[in-house]
């Protein structure tokens, strides 16, 4: 039982859905044409082909391409020790796909993380809410249009974020991006630094004046109950 044979069996069962297996570094990748049927394909992979372990579920943001998102499933079977990768594409307008929690219960938290970081919703998920960021955080951080430094957000009494000081930025040259000469000067300009810090302090001060604490409404006074 090699991965190639198992991939062939999967293709035989869903002939118009699954692409030719692509091989890279000894691993097989299959693309699924229709995201809506992923639960069906995964259920067959588990029950019919013995892929009883969902190793990992990931999302990739192909910013600038359509469809924008790819969801990647890594399957493994303890019986035949073969691995397989399934990729499914989701466009930005659709933004959702069926859950595979019914097939492997480990998908629960993986899907929550994909929702949290990338914003893809999973229909049929028992409890789709943010897992790493707090409830009410407004952005999806792993999307390519979310900056590395972060954005300003404020959830009173819960948490607030401000852009992190990058101190010159990520020190890496990306081929096709700006080279080190074009990114000069990297010097920190004390005036603009002070402006950023003052803006941040002012926001905190406004909140503090309104509520008494820098993080939101202050303590509630104990109610007095009387007969």
């Amino acid at each position: 039982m090699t991965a190639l044979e198992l991939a062939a069996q999967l293709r035989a069962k869903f002939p118009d859905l699954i692409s030719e297996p692509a091989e890279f570094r000894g691993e097989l990748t299959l693309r699924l044409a229709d995201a809506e049927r992923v639960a069906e394909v995964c259920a067959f992979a588990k029950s019919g082909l013995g892929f009883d372990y969902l190793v990992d579920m990931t999302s990739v943001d192909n910013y600038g391409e359509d469809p924008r998102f790819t969801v990647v499933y890594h399957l493994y079977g303890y019986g035949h020790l073969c691995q397989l990768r399934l990729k499914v594409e989701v466009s930005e307008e659709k933004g959702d796909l069926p859950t595979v929690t019914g097939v492997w219960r480990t998908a629960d938290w993986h899907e929550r993380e994909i929702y949290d970081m990338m914003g893809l919703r999973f229909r049929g998920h028992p409890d789709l809410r943010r897992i790493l960021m707090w409830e009410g955080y407004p952005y999806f951080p792993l999307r390519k249009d979310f900056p590395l430094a972060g954005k300003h957000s404020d959830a009173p009494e819960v948490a607030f974020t401000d852009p992190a000081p990058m101190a010159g930025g990520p020190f890496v040259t990306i081929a096709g991006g700006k080279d080190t000469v074009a990114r000069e000067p990297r010097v920190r300009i004390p005036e603009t630094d002070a402006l950023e810090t003052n803006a941040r302090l002012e926001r905190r001060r406004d909140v503090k004046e309104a509520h008494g604490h820098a993080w939101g409404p202050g303590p509630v006074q104990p109610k007095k109950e009387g007969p």
Partner: protein
Amino acid sequence: MAELRVIEVPDAGARPEAGDELPELEGERMVLNVGPSHPATHGVLRIVLELDGEVITKARPEIGYLHRGDEKIAENMTYTQFIPYTDRLDYLAPLANNVAYALAVEKLLGIDRQLPPRCQYIRVICSELARVSSHLLGMGSYAMDVGAMTVFLHTFTEREKIYNLCESLTGARFTTNYTRIGGLSRDLPPGWVEQCRQFLNEVVVNIDETETFLTRNRIFADRTQGIGVIPKDVAIDYGLSGPNLRGSGVEHDLRKAQPYLVYDRLKFDVPVGSAGDCYDRYLVRIEEMRQSVKILHQCLDQLPGGPVNVPDGKVVLPPKHRVMTGMEELIHHFIQVTQGVNAPPGEIYFGHENPKGELGFYINSKGGGTPHRLKIRSPSFVNLSILSHLLPGHMLSDVTAILGSFDFVMGEADR
């Protein structure tokens, strides 16, 4: 009739967050918050428990208190620049994370078969030392959580020796940053092999002592046997890995199933539990430590000489004296430091048998020196997902026993 008094708690941190819904409680159920700041939660894990007396009826773990955005950072760093971030994933076994990440990037580059034998043996030594270190801490703090404080101090004495070994090897006790793409940052210092052998002789004595403290200890057995039972199919369904999976009876170890480095040349056994309870997971870890010592002895005996880096100037920094005098080496050095190692477009997944489970890296590359997407499949994240299924039905005091037996670390779960 009793008077109903409403007490408002002034502390903002003790109240549930705005987005939480308090469940509709019937009867005498109580909601207890095992908060992120808690000595027995092995890091910043928050569990919201609903209790009926002492028995847990619902458990909702909440993570993310140590989320640092490692995956986002990786998209903006070259592969070599990300290595220090991997130390801080499972910060109790940093050498193992370094090895896992280096192997993943080398698989992407296609040079994993070209690693010199000395490099492979040293990486195995690093992984197994990390395994011993992590299990010593895991079992020490587990024993402390269930009440046996002495064991903690015993195991930590041995961990100090491992830290000394790490310090002479890498320069840092903790954040080792040791492997590089295509090799290691430096070779073993002179005298290290003898120090390591001496440590191995001492650690087996210590493991035996730990066993005499705990294994046939009536109190420890009562607290861990029959608690947190995970049947085999549930363990597989929830994606458990490492000692947690093997404690439930699944005979699967990545070192044997998907051998990497020189594990196919080494003789060792893989301990497998039967009952799937906390006691079995503890026994699996103790035996894994002994097997790691066995592997380490074999590695130290078989350690070959030779270089520790792949002799490819495009992947590994050329030696400095050549960089200063040779044009080609200078160019290689410059490109590697500024742009990073040029990876081909493609995607790989590599899973490594970490002490906590299967640490996997999924790297999606569109070419160039930075990954397009790097996903860290962390064992602790996946192991924790079973808590909401496992905890209900147990008593409150079993929570520490179960959490300790899982041996997770939040740095990995949250990344």
